[in-house]
């Protein structure tokens, strides 16, 4: 690799020096962090020998006979993901309307508002939303659905707003020329243009939401996570292994289907 760098006459040697300096600084920094985490803050004494760790790990081998009991929670998880996505779709369209620079009604007020909501939704982990909803609404799938909806509307609104900003202004002007109001321009000039992109993003989000829904139960948001928390607490590690296998299978199948459908759409 070094040969390639020297042999390239277009590359400035100063640039190469800068690259290696940046690389060196990063390496020293990462080594310092590694020392802190692996040597200073890990209790190697208590962890025991490698053989003990392997023994504990072997407890997690899936207990296949537990599978029938995981089917209903898995279905619940799927439904939570689906309803979270449906709610997010409903809420994200108006937010995208506010957060798209070219059509937002009052650029000084509504644009920052829409962007702020998007940042809030995208930067907070779904577990945190679930905690807030669970503390307000009690346990069960309802706070889980709301948490998923809040978490995924940011992505949907952001991509939709970007699609609106990149939309062809021709049809929009044509509709405006007929004397249509803002809402009609949005419905007939903008929505038909962005619809395929939007559907693709919704399917993508659905596939991610299955993964997110599976852990909501750990904080009381319903679904398979609740069962996982129970079996972990009661030290049924084999059952926990089975649940992880079940979720992984569901997510992988979901992702496969989502990829196929999106390929078809585009």
């Amino acid at each position: 690799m070094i040969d390639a760098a020297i042999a390239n006459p277009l590359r400035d040697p100063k640039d190469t020096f800068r690259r290696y300096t940046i690389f060196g600084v990063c390496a020293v920094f990462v080594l310092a962090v590694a020392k802190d985490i692996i040597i200073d803050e890990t209790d190697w004494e208590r962890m025991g020998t490698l053989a003990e760790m392997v023994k504990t790990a072997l407890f997690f081998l899936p207990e296949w006979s537990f599978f029938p009991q995981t089917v209903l929670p898995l279905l619940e998880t799927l439904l939570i993901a689906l309803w979270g996505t449906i709610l997010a779709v409903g809420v994200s369209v108006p937010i995208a309307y506010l957060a798209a620079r070219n059509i937002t009604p009052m650029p000084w007020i509504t644009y920052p508002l829409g962007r702020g909501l998007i940042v809030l939704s995208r930067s907070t982990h779904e577990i945190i939303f679930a905690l807030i909803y669970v503390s307000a609404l009690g346990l069960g799938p309802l706070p889980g659905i709301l948490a998923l909806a809040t978490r995924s509307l940011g992505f949907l609104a952001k991509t939709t707003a970007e699609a609106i900003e990149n939309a062809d202004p021709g049809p929009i002007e044509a509709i405006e020329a007929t004397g249509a109001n803002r809402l009609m321009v949005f419905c007939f000039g903008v929505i038909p243009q962005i619809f395929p992109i939007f559907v693709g993003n919704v399917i993508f989000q659905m596939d991610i939401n299955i993964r997110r829904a599976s852990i909501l139960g750990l904080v009381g948001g319903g679904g398979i996570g609740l069962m996982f928390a129970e079996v972990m607490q009661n030290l049924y590690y084999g059952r926990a292994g089975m649940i992880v296998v079940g979720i992984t299978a569901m997510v992988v199948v979901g992702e496969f289907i989502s990829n196929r459908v999106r390929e078809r759409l585009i």
Partner: protein
Amino acid sequence: MKENVSLAFDRHRSEEMRSGLWKFVGLLLFIAFAFWSIDVLKIPIERVLGMFGRLGTMISERLLPPEMAFAAQPRVVDSIVETIEMSILGAVIGTIITMPLAWFAAWNVTPSRAILFPLSRAIIVVTRGMPTLMWAMVLVAIFGFGPFAGMLALVKASIGFAGKLMAEQIEAIDMKRVEAIRATGANELDVLFYAVIPQVWANWVGIIIYNWDAQLRNSTILGFVGAGGMGLYLREQISIIEYQTAMAIIVVIIVMVVLSETASHFLRHRLY
């Protein structure tokens, strides 16, 4: 002529009615599905109706304002530093493991299509599918509490997240350069270093930074299951119903994530 027009109109009408009928059937099916899922999920309807009021009082009376003094305590600040360190280490080790995996998992240049390709694809798919928080719980059971288990969980998350993106980048390269290097009699490793990496490196650096950003987001809640970092205090404060101090942690998390997102955006545009 007149016949034709009315015929065409009739056809248009019947098509319109048919599509209207389909929409109606679709709506009915959707409503039936909604009722069925409410039944399966056992959602209490009366609670849905009073939901917004309860959320409003919850947020205005119990969550706000956040008690930021809690987050300034030394033990909390230490845990925040630990979170960031964990995310950096997990992302670095994860991407180092991911690089060869991405090479094996790219169909066009993989050194062995029969063994390494399906194996590495399977590793990437399974690590992507497995929820990181559950994996962290399993690791905590094996390695004990602390940032070491959290770091390993983030390594797993990095392989799933970056592996797919990096392999996709390799699959999109220009094969002419690969052929040119192969024509000189180069072996697979030479092809990797002189034809593949120069083409994907710029995008890979972007993916590495993006991956760190994603892992920072993951690391903030790993403490929830005892895998190190600030999530521990979030859980502690919630379980003793101190929502205002918990909100302080949440505010710190949001600020951290927004800052890291800005930093990663800046770095990605600055470096390449």
